[in-house]
């Protein structure tokens, strides 16, 4: 669809966030809702202006220019890959904890995504895990989160 692009979607998303927060504010007592409404309503109006401006820009875009500004498919694939890597890191930390994630997922990322050599990937992941353990557990005395799964296995 010609009108729907990233700029439009982002403006619409911001508008939706403001609108839902303004909607929620209406349910609070007067003193609690005053400032959120004072900020939220102008925010909503600004996002509405931005959305209208983006829609107009999309509508007016000359087809050739539109083609030229289109994001290459390879870049989109890379973006999607990173949108998967990021939650994978979070999920791994939640399940396995920081040390195991640094040891395993950093290695997997460097090998699979960055195509680094086995030696470098292994060195960086092991080195990273050791440094994290030494700095946080030993020097700073901050226990690293062990993860749900590790906790369950250990208990």
């Amino acid at each position: 669809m010609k009108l729907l692009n990233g700029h439009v979607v982002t403006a619409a998303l911001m508008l939706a966030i403001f609108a839902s927060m303004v909607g929620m504010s209406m349910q609070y007592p007067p003193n609690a809702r005053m400032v959120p409404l004072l900020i939220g309503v102008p925010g909503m109006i600004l996002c509405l202006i931005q959305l209208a401006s983006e829609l107009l820009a999309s509508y007016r875009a000359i087809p050739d220019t539109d083609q030229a500004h289109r994001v290459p498919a390879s870049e989109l694939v890379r973006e999607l890959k990173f949108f998967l890597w990021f939650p994978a890191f979070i999920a791994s930390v939640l399940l396995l904890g920081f040390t195991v994630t640094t040891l395993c997922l950093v290695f997997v990322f460097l090998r699979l995504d960055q195509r680094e050599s086995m030696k470098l990937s292994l060195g960086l992941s092991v080195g990273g895990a050791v440094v994290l353990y030494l700095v946080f557990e030993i020097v700073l005395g901050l226990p690293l989160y062990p993860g749900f799964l590790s906790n369950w296995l250990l208990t």
Partner: protein
Amino acid sequence: MSIDIIFGSLFSIISSPYLMGLILLAIPIGMFFGAIPGLGGKLGIVLMIPFVFGMDMVAGAVFLLAMHSVVHTGGSIPSIIFGIPGTGPDAATIIDGYPLAKQGKAGWALGASLGASGFGGVIGAVVLALMLPVLKPVVLAFSPAEFFLLAILGITFIATLSGDSLVKGLAVGLFGLMLAFVGLDPQTGVARFTFGQLFLWDGIDVITAILALFAIPEMISLGVKGGSISSVSAQAARYSVKEVLLGIGAVWTHRWLALRTSIIGAVVGMIPGLGGDAATWICYGHAVQSSKTPELFGKGAIEGVIAPETANNSKEGGSLLPTLFFGVPGSSGMAILLGAFVMLGIQPGPQMMLTQLDLVWVLIWALVLANVISVFMFVGVARWLGVLSFIRGGLLIPFVFILGIMGSYLSRGAWENLLLLFFMGILGYLLKRFDWPRPPFVIGLVLGGIAEESLHKALNIWGPTFFMRPMSLVFIAIIIGSLVLYVVRRNKQKKGPSGVALSGGPKL
């Protein structure tokens, strides 16, 4: 102002092996973040946040400030050797630094940049120190009404200067303010925007929000676009220590220029939101105008390296002033530093002038020491510093993810924060990808609580006419003036090219 406080603060740092050790540790880390294109000082502060959790307020603040103050010293390395700016404000150094490197004078240019950075950093701290007695009565004259308007002014300034679209900048700033209202309302005790989640009762964690909006999008972006400069020949990074020392000597030769640009940089830094790009380009322009040989600029004039580099470091001292005493960050880097200070328990604002002046002096001295020590440290490792610029961004991505997740988890010890990090990280990437400036968000989030409290206080004291107070009217005039100035400037830009864009800079 008591001499005891001024020099007692210096003594408390230099007599403490712990604080001195932290400064010594912070300098190479700051240089590292500056020297690798695509990282920069903002990411440096964000990623170092997990490491300051175990520290006390003073130690954490000294470490982060020392690191942040030398980022641009490192940023000149890729600018001079490869013609690639380490960070946005280092771009002006390329114009003469890179031609010097191509002429085989990389060491000389690096030495000049180093000497200028150290000199500028010290002068910036001195300007800040000299401003303290002048500033005290001004800060203390502020009432809750002015503090509310100051928060709005901060967002307006940053919104007008950190991106191409005022509408987007203001919207993001207001979004930051809205998120500051998440949690229990201090006035009524009502849980606002918490979706029944207990971990949100204390509000959105500032550190998680900053990590999500800055570190995560930068890494996704680096991963998508790639960030290697390894194709550049390593030959360019070879130079001798003697050349570096001669370069430092060049700063003495041009000492009056260095002094003028340092002062200009510090003053520009004091203007909230103007940022480093403006300071460096203004000072570069001044160097060209005041030179007897302006025709040499762009071809390898050493003054073209000295002027932007002094400004780059001196503006940090200047921008500490609005950050510490008004809670309005002088630059986007300071916005993140402000968030980190809040996390450490430092509440920026006028009370710093009354109750935490010793801390202010500790920070001023930390700024001076970091800049002076960095000169000696750089000379010691000068021959190997160019190698830093060869580190591939891709190798850092997984570690940034881990440190980001760690920072978010440690700030509250709640795993739910990681979900917040994920959703806000995606939003942060969309904002970056589609040119919505992010610094106004941080200011909104940090100042939101103070703004709301101040507004309630002002309404209780003066009623709805609080904005008719003389000082409030001045603030309203400045807010309107900055918006009008923005519109005029945009119209001028649309009508035709107008030379160097001073406030354009990289999109944040």
